[in-house]
């Protein structure tokens, strides 16, 4: 027998100019895991925010445990037995696990918080649900996977019997993900109903009982997982048949453009982040750098682009030693850099499109003459790039901040790749981006490769690595633990390397 714990009918949410959720229905039963599948922008987060009381639905009704429920805010949602694990952890770094768990519902003895009781309840919960965590540890010192358990504990401590997990595997290794799925099964067995949001089909098929697919703000399909296939779900999610591999020709690698030997560098906390890294990129090939986030990828990209000081080792680009070179020197060698957080780090949002398009070349002729800016040349450059890369903007004087996300991407790619001759360093190009932009960036990377540039693609998404890379390098704790042709690699093998489970 199934007992409904959550029942939503006709939830609708409008934002100025957008119908974010269009009459969405959702059911969740006791002890059930429901997958909520959809791409970025499909309306998953809006739906969840309505369930959790962050947004007020414009239309629709909700029932919790069979009772009509009108959720006035997160506090109310919590009181009604909902718990949420956010994609970006909602943990206070300098506080202990126990403090984080009890925050907002602290046990007290007299005037003070009863720390003993707090620690004790965390310990009990973690034993009961098999979530191994030290209550006294400071959260920011813990690995990501453990932090996630703290998030789950927070919900359980508040007596949640409805758990919403928002893209929980985004930051985990495949192995950590498997552990998470195991934890979810265990929770469901104790009667907790789980809404599991993801865009990863493998996880949906592995753990859910039912799956709900969203696209364009509406539910486009709901089915028992048992009868579903990866291809079928993918097609539902994207709205057209999906090719899992990007179309590209066989790579024709030329001479080595990037040669890294024994690279050592420290991170912002002065810890050794890159530990004796050696790798090469040849012209006309895409080298994918796989690894769980925080294993030195950021530092690697920063050292290669001149943004981070190197402790020891050498970097050579196109035969020139750039070990101590500045970002500008490296740029002069024809290196393009598509940064990870593009809109934040790659653009000055109050500048015009034209100014953003010369951000990496404003100091060169013809844009600058004896220290003075040549506005005519800057405008010509902008007109050309806007046309070549199809940037949709009212004018080149328009503030770049007013453009859509996809067009911002194009501005950056146009700027970085239009002058690139030797090497492209692209960091997490699909993060937080809609499908159209992902395809655009992928196409541009492949075309840069085909024009003879070497491409170093750093990504935490294995799918992306496998669909683009000609060669795969795996980073683990700042070391290269694998380096193989993409054709010979399997997801399982790379996954194990990413987790540090085997030494290559």
């Amino acid at each position: 027998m199934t007992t409904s714990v959550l029942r939503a009918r006709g939830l609708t949410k409008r934002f100025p100019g957008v119908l974010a959720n269009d009459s969405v229905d959702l059911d969740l039963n006791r002890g059930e895991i429901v997958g909520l599948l959809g791409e970025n922008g499909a309306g998953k987060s809006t739906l969840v925010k309505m369930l959790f009381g962050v947004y007020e639905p414009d239309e629709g009704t909700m029932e919790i445990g069979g009772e009509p429920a009108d959720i006035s805010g997160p506090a109310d949602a919590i009181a009604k037995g909902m718990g949420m694990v956010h994609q970006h952890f909602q943990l206070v770094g300098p506080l202990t696990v126990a403090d984080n768990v009890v925050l907002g519902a602290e046990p007290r003895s007299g005037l003070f918080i009863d720390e003993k009781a707090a620690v004790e309840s965390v310990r009990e919960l973690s034993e009961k649900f098999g979530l191994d965590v030290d209550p006294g540890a400071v959260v920011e010192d813990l690995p990501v996977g453990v932090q996630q358990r703290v998030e789950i504990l927070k919900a359980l401590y508040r007596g949640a019997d409805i758990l919403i997990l928002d893209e929980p595997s985004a930051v985990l290794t495949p192995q950590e993900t498997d552990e998470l799925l195991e934890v979810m099964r265990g929770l469901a067995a104790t009667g907790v109903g789980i809404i599991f949001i993801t865009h990863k089909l493998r996880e949906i098929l592995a753990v859910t009982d039912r799956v709900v697919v969203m696209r364009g703000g509406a539910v486009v399909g709901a089915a028992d997982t048992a009868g579903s296939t990866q291809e079928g779900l993918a097609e539902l999610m994207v709205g057209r048949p999906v090719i899992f591999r990007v179309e590209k020709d066989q790579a024709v690698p030329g001479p080595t453009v990037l040669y890294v030997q024994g690279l050592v560098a420290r991170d912002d906390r002065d810890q050794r982040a890159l530990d004796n890294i050696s790798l090469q990129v040849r012209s006309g090939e895409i080298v994918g750098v796989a690894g769980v986030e925080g294993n030195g990828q950021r530092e690697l990209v920063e050292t290669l682009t001149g943004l981070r000081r190197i402790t020891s080792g050498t970097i050579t680009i196109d035969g020139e030693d750039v070990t101590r070179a500045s970002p500008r020197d490296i740029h002069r060698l024809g290196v393009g850099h598509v940064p990870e957080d593009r809109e934040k780090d790659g653009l000055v949002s109050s500048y015009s499109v034209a100014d953003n398009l010369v951000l990496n070349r404003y100091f060169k002729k013809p844009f600058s003459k004896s220290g003075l800016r040549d506005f005519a040349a800057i405008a010509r450059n902008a007109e050309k790039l806007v046309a070549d890369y199809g940037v949709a903007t009212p004018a080149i004087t328009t503030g770049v901040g007013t453009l859509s996300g996809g067009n911002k991407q194009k501005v950056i790619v146009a700027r970085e790749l239009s002058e690139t001759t030797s090497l492209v360093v692209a960091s997490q190009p699909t993060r937080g981006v809609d499908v159209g932009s992902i395809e655009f960036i992928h196409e541009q990377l492949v075309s840069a490769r085909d024009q003879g540039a070497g491409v170093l693609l750093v990504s935490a998404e294995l799918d992306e690595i496998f669909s683009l890379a000609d060669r795969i390098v795996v980073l683990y704790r700042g070391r290269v633990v694998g380096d193989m042709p993409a054709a010979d690699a399997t997801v399982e093998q790379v996954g194990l390397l990413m987790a540090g489970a085997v030494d290559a």
Partner: protein
Amino acid sequence: MKQRQWDALRLPLIAVALGLLVGCILIVLAGNNPATAYWALVKGSLSGVTELGRTLDKATPLVMGGLAVAVAFKAGLFNIGGQGQLLLGAAVAAYFGFRFSMPTVIHLPLAMAMGGLAAGLLGWLVGVLKATRGTHEVITTIMLNFVAANLTDWLTSRDGPWKDPESGAIARTPLVNESAEIPRLGGLPTGFLVAVLAAGICWWVFEKTNFGFEVRTTGLNPKAARYAGIKTQRIIVTTMVMSAFLAGVGGAIETQGVAGRFQPGFNTGLGFDGITIALLARTNPLAVVPAALLIGAMDAGSTLMQAEADVAPEIISVIQASILFFIAAPSVVRFIVRMRSDAATDDDMRLSSGWGA
């Protein structure tokens, strides 16, 4: 185009009007007549050559102080140290003014430049600490205000090395030599022209040069600036030096063109006036000039206001604080005057983000 210029002007004008309204209310509460008071303010600042001269005298260091803050803002820095930088610039200019004697063409600019450089040194310290140690410039500039005040106090004190031997108990330097004095043209100070010129140069630098572009990029998005190959640490230090240099020259002009010597404690509060002026000008160097003239006129007229309307001159500070508040809180202004929100006036400043480290 006209419409946009009007939009950009509207908020500052309304903020000034609201500031005057606050002053008006306080004057009424104190039992005085605001009309008499404000009329005296206008008369005291504009009615004749003497009054105009006084307004320009007051406005000159304000232009420089406003520019100092505005220039720093461009690089995302908040220079609250205008006061200390001005004091040091004024004292050093006085020293070079009274100690040496040479032809005017050399002496006058030399003393002025030395004042600017001395202040620039303070700015350099602030910039270097910010760039290398991450020490927040607001803290360092505040602290250096007090250091500079104490230092210049001592220089002219009883046992100080720059004390005027003939001034008895009064702490001050001797008068600067004539060759270091900034001349007045028909009662009007030419030092003001120097300030206007400085504003023009600043505008040109930020609008037309690569360096200005680099500074603005650093201020608007430091990370993007570094990606673009801009040496942001060097930009921070250079801009801070420039900013302090401007304030120091302001002090030098005060010494060489108005007071004739350095005396501790003159022009207190200038650092804060500079903030109001820079924000009133929306950090546009050219707009700093009218903004400084407005505040300078209020200062110049405040004496007559006290005489004729019995309103204490400190009311000017209250009005200034109110103007600053309304400028920094466009949402309040919009609420009061039912102004539509528009992008042109909405680029608000965000500078505070934890100290140090």
